[in-house]
């Protein structure tokens, strides 16, 4: 199973803020059971999407030398459920980056309105973790920023460069 819970980045400001988009498609398997006839996106998968958005934001700032893993959900508040057919925007803002860990404030927007807020704490696992039991055998050395996520990373960098060029031309 592919573990990607966002569709792409729409904005990226290195070390500051990122925005991604997630279309909730009825074709996603989990909607069949969650729940039959009432397809609600599980909040845990929304948090995972926010964590992937925020994790790439933090990881990029650290030049992907650290493995940025979701350590703890510090706070989560959802105003409503999100159903198949809706488009969510995940906004991640860096609150703090330290060598050992970081915190990110994630917000979920739907049709321009903020509908959920989640504060996420990431632990940074240093290079010694690369060869540890936690790293799946045969995969990329950095098991967090795997090849699947790298396409997003390139997209994020492109958006950041575009934003910088635009700022420079004003």
């Amino acid at each position, binding site marked *: 199973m592919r573990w990607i819970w966002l569709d792409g980045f729409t904005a990226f400001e290195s070390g500051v803020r990122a925005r991604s988009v997630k279309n909730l498609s009825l074709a996603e398997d989990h909607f069949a059971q969650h729940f039959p006839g009432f397809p609600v996106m599980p909040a845990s998968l929304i948090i995972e999407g926010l964590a992937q958005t925020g994790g790439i934001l933090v990881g990029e700032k650290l030049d992907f030398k650290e493995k940025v893993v979701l*350590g*703890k959900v510090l706070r989560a508040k959802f105003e409503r459920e999100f159903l198949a057919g809706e488009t969510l925007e995940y906004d991640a803002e860096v609150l703090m980056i330290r060598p050992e*860990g970081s915190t990110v404030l994630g917000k979920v927007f739907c049709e321009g309105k903020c509908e959920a807020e989640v504060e996420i*704490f990431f632990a940074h696992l240093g290079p010694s973790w690369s060869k540890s039991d936690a790293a799946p055998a045969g995969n990329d050395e950095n098991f967090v920023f795997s090849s699947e996520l790298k396409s997003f990373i390139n997209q994020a960098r492109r958006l950041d460069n575009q934003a910088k060029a635009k700022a420079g031309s004003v």
Partner: protein
Amino acid sequence: MASQDEIFEKVSATLVEALNVDEDEIRPASTLTGDLGAESIDFLDIVFRLEREFGIKIPREELFPEVAEGNNPEFMQDGVVTPKGIDELKRAMPFADFNDFEKDPRMTEFSNLFTVKMITNYIQDKLARGGR
């Protein structure tokens, strides 16, 4: 300068947030792992919250040092910390109470040094030195 009671109150409030425990569960002698259910990831969260709450910088491993078996046989043998090892720990953690640990210096007991009182002592000392 904050009194020890004021520091204890702020430390308690920090632990309530970080560990999702009730304030009345927190006593000075409460151990973070045994009594309050802290897991390894919580220690880093607690450090960051204390830094914010008290406006100080806590260098890595200063408050919660990590001790691994096998690093130095002079300090630890067969899972038991040697008297020399205890002296070394006392130097690294002057804010901890070693009375119980000296009676039973097994490594499995090491985490019981991490008490609410230990954090309070550490913060008080840190603030007295101007946060350094």
